[in-house]
């Protein structure tokens, strides 16, 4: 039983499959528009500085010096960018399925606590095994936490944005309970913490730098997520489900497992971020884990337009801004919140620039043949 699909009528010439120039134009759009938005944001921020009677030129010069101008400042930037990479992926992965998950902070803090606890329990094993055990524990709890949000969304239609936010509060409360109660190191007096990790549970610096391995893990995770989304069967299915869930259903794609799987992977990466904070920065788990990386990660993901590759430069940019923040505020006598004003302006402008996609003929080969 075969339904013939050929017709006797002469076929049209094959359409172009997308030449280099065309591909370049389509890709360039998602680079040029956010860059333009960043420039406009800097321009507006300059007006803000002028209104305060400060010099925008000096601001930009200090930003450069504090964030990227010297080996010291570059390392500082990389250190601050490291947790943002994984935190942003926790937003990017669900976003590709059309979910807005903003509770990565919860997975980060629980991942940190789980890593500290696991590191303590298996402290006798060889260093590699300790690190692996810590990472697995952190990823498992993070994956469960955000995976549960995906399951709530798919099976019970609970809004994932609200539930992830509320679950983050629960996670922070749970962490506080654990580090002040069952897991507390009796020696930690002023700041309740877990028992410090032994040397086997600590992540060192990348040789030749003062930057810990977290930055490498983050960049590798971004590349792996890009491969997953763009090149694999599961990523393709996720893009279909995220782009039009009705089309995915009518093709028989298993939307539920996709949503839960991507959410769990996102949570696992955020949990890993918590583990790295514990193993490379704090040496134990305490309330400093809730440092807001999960929330800055939202900003990074949106600035990167939910692209895992975009997350890398945006994390570096925001890391640089954070690194330079102290210097700028001290030297120019600006209030502490100045850097937040800049971040807010950039965020709003990048979101606004979303409306510009498809408006420029130069990026849209479908309109090239025609007059404007």
């Amino acid at each position: 039983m075969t339904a013939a699909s050929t017709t006797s009528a002469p076929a049209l010439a094959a359409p172009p499959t997308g030449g280099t120039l065309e591909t370049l134009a389509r890709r360039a759009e998602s680079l040029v528009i956010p860059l333009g938005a960043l420039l406009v944001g800097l321009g507006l921020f300059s007006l803000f500085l002028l209104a305060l009677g400060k010099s925008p030129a000096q601001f930009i010069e200090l930003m450069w010096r504090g964030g990227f101008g010297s080996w010291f400042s570059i390392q500082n930037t990389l250190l601050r960018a490291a947790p943002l990479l994984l935190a942003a992926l926790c937003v990017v992965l669900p976003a590709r399925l059309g979910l807005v998950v903003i509770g990565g902070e919860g997975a980060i803090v629980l991942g940190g606590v789980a890593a500290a606890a696991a590191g303590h329990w298996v402290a006798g094993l060889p260093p590699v095994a300790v690190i692996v055990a810590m990472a697995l524990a952190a990823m498992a709890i993070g994956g469960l936490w955000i995976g549960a949000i995906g399951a709530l969304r798919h099976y019970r239609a609970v809004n994932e944005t609200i539930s992830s936010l509320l679950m983050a509060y629960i996670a922070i409360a749970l962490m506080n309970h654990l580090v002040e109660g069952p897991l507390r190191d009796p020696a930690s007096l002023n700041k309740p913490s877990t028992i410090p990790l032994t040397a086997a549970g600590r992540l060192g610096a990348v040789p030749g730098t003062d930057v810990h391995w977290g930055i490498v893990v983050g960049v590798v995770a971004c590349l792996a997520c890009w491969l997953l989304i763009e090149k694999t069967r599961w990523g393709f299915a996720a893009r279909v489900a995220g782009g039009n869930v009705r089309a995915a259903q009518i093709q028989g794609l298993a939307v539920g497992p996709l949503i839960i799987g991507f959410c769990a992977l996102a949570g696992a990466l955020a949990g890993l971020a918590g583990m790295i904070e514990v193993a490379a920065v704090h040496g134990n788990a305490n309330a400093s884990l809730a440092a807001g990386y999960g929330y800055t990660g939202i900003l990074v993901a949106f600035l990167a337009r939910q692209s895992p590759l975009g997350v890398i430069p945006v994390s570096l940019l925001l890391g640089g801004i954070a690194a330079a923040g102290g210097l700028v505020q001290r030297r120019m006598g600006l209030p502490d919140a100045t850097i937040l004003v800049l971040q807010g302006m950039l965020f709003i402008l990048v979101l606004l620039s979303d409306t510009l996609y498809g408006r420029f003929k130069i990026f849209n080969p479908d309109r090239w043949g025609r007059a404007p």
Partner: protein
Amino acid sequence: MDIQPSAGAVGVETVGMTMRFGSFTALDDVSIKVSAGSFHALLGENGAGKSTLVKCMMGFYQPTEGQMLVGSREATIASPRDADRLGLGMVYQHFTLVPSLTGAENLVISRPDVPRIIAWPKERKALAAFMDRMPFKISLDAPVRELAAGEKQKLEIIKQLYLGRRFLVLDEPTSVLTPGEAEELLGLVRGMTERRQLTVLMISHKFHEVTQFADDVSVLRKGKLAGTGRVAELDHKALAAMMIGDQPIAPIDSRRPTPAGAAAVLSVTGLSAKDRSGLKSIRIDDLTVRAGEIVGIAGISGNGQKELLEVLAGQRGREAGEVAVKGEPYGATRAQSRDRHVRFIPEEPLRNACVPRMTVAENIGLRTFDLGPEGRPVTWINSGGLKAHAARLVQQFKVKTASLASPIEALSGGNVQRAVLARELSGEVDLLIVSNPCFGLDFAAVAEIRARIMKARNGGAAVLLMSEDLDELLELSDRILVMAGGQLVYETSIADADVHVIGEHMASRH
């Protein structure tokens, strides 16, 4: 505002109407004369410029060139308000009444000068006097949502008369009505034009409506006036030739007889599921589609057809009942659909069957992207293979696209549907479930798509075709079932099918 009946029909004429959007000419030097008290039909394919023309007449667009004459006097219509002042009005294809308000409330709030505080006793008296002068009666006290589609459309027309219109544009006014309702409505409108209360310009797709009710007809093609004349002097063939010009129309295969012992491919028994509102249910007691036949399901939109398709496609849960394909239970999983060669072509393909922002190649690959050459699941997507596959199908199915890398949303409706057909009709097809496949498509695309469905049937596929277009069902089906109120209420073989009997059943649970 005085609610005197309109002071009588007024004639409207466009002279050299031209409308350009950038370099695209949507309307090119169109002159149409609609004389006072006439019933004038405006025919044309999608994108021929019909709506652009009436939007220019109603003041929604400013024509690039050209004038309008209203009652032989030159009129400038800079905004819909000017059109209103001159007594020109329009009834849209879709209802514009507020469903939760009564007819009376809808009428009063539609006035341009609603007072801050409405004196209802006074308004009611005025409305009663107004209704006395109307050629047909309709209850103004029930909430609009309780009215049948035909009643709603009548109320839309009454609203226009209430607003003092003397020239009315009707945009496909019967597309949501049963054949009986449509005839009644157009008969009433025709009566009003004969009494010279109203001039009517009706946009339509349906030739039989035009020949039955209109005095004159104008045909647009690609923005130009392709012809105009007295309806009495033109036959369907001449009208069709004017509409489509000299483009080739795919001939439909002749119907091969269904083999006598053809196996049941789809069988549905005792199925029930909640409808969209969650308040009512659909119930399909028994539905069988055999290999090599097309079973058509007729019904007015919103009587459960969408829900039935969603249940079959696994988008909607079922409460009870069995769905079997080739004798085995079927749950619409990817593996089952692949195994038993089940394909779906839902209505509004861009909304229901495509990912608008993904490329044409990716969309054509939706069905097979996860399979390698040997039919085994793959890990890595072969994007070169996807493109080659798409390039082949695009050629075979004559999809017009600038590039395979264009997002599919950049394509016209007909080409999106061709791309979906290319995806779903390639390879072996044993069960094809189709819903309103030709809605909103142009003549050539419609003919081609129907030919493809017939070809699939003749190739041995079982086809379940849900359509709101009775003509389409009559052309394609071997059997026609009528769905009303969520149930199958009538069945007829194509040989015994009678439009009026089908129409009555369509309206039976309205």
